[in-house]
């Protein structure tokens, strides 16, 4: 078979001005109207960004414990005892819980397990990968992540009340 050049747009002159056609970042962070897995994808991305930023910051901030003696660390810990910092820490732990839970599901699904198998498509064409075992697993994992976040919030409640009372 010879190499045929596909000239689809031969008779179509592309316009000199092509308006913006790519959805861009909006497609990453705005999963409205789409399916459950798309929401999980958005959450995974957003929590991943939070965690990457936090990890780099964490490695550099905690180096204060090796520079000099213990006073730098103690001052840092005292400065961190405010509700804004507590909220930030809860957000980071929540991000870790969600990212980890969705990650477990992605390990299974992206290796081809729990996504169902090819079927004969019949109207109304509900795709089997979106209603296979991976959706149930995702919901269970998200509930577990939610429980962990709840425990974290409960743990910070005495710290919040200590700040606002004392």
């Amino acid at each position, binding site marked *: 078979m010879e190499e045929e050049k596909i000239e689809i747009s031969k008779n179509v002159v592309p316009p000199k001005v092509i308006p913006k056609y790519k959805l861009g*970042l909006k497609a990453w962070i705005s999963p409205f109207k789409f399916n459950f897995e798309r929401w999980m994808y958005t959450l995974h*991305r957003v929590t*991943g*960004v939070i*965690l*990457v930023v936090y*990890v*780099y910051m964490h*490695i*550099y901030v*905690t*180096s204060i*414990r*090796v520079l000099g003696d*213990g006073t730098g*660390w*103690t001052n840092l*810990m005292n400065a961190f005892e405010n509700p804004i910092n507590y909220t930030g820490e809860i957000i980071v*732990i929540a991000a*870790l819980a969600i990212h*980890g839970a969705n*990650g*477990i599901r992605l*390990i299974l699904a*992206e*290796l081809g397990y729990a996504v169902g198998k090819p079927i004969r498509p019949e109207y109304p064409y509900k795709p089997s990968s979106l209603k296979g075992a991976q959706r149930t697993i995702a919901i269970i994992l998200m509930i577990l992540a939610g429980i962990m976040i709840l*425990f974290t919030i409960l*743990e*910070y409640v005495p*710290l919040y009340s200590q700040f606002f009372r004392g």
Partner: protein
Amino acid sequence: MKESQLWFLQLITGALLLVLAFSHISTFSSLIGTGYKTGLEYSSLIERAKPLFYVIFYSVFLTVLMYHANYGLRTLLIEFTGGKYKTLITMGVFIVAFITYLYGLWEIIIFHLMAGGG
């Protein structure tokens, strides 16, 4: 290394991180660890840094974490810029990650020596 091998390592490091990160956080949890206020005091930090296990645990944790986080960062950057700067992004992320990795390793070892470990 092929892209598929890099991706598979991401899965493995992700699974390892679940265990390692959870145990790192639980050091200052009230349920499993020593609690928030006491767990983050300088004295308990020094005490935890004495055994050799501290160096082993945190070096492994840092290696696994750096790989996973930076593969993710590289993925985000490549997908966002539309794939035009793939080699540039890979090299840039590798350099930043390597510098941070060495700094983190230095921190761990120095703190262990400051705590009086062998």
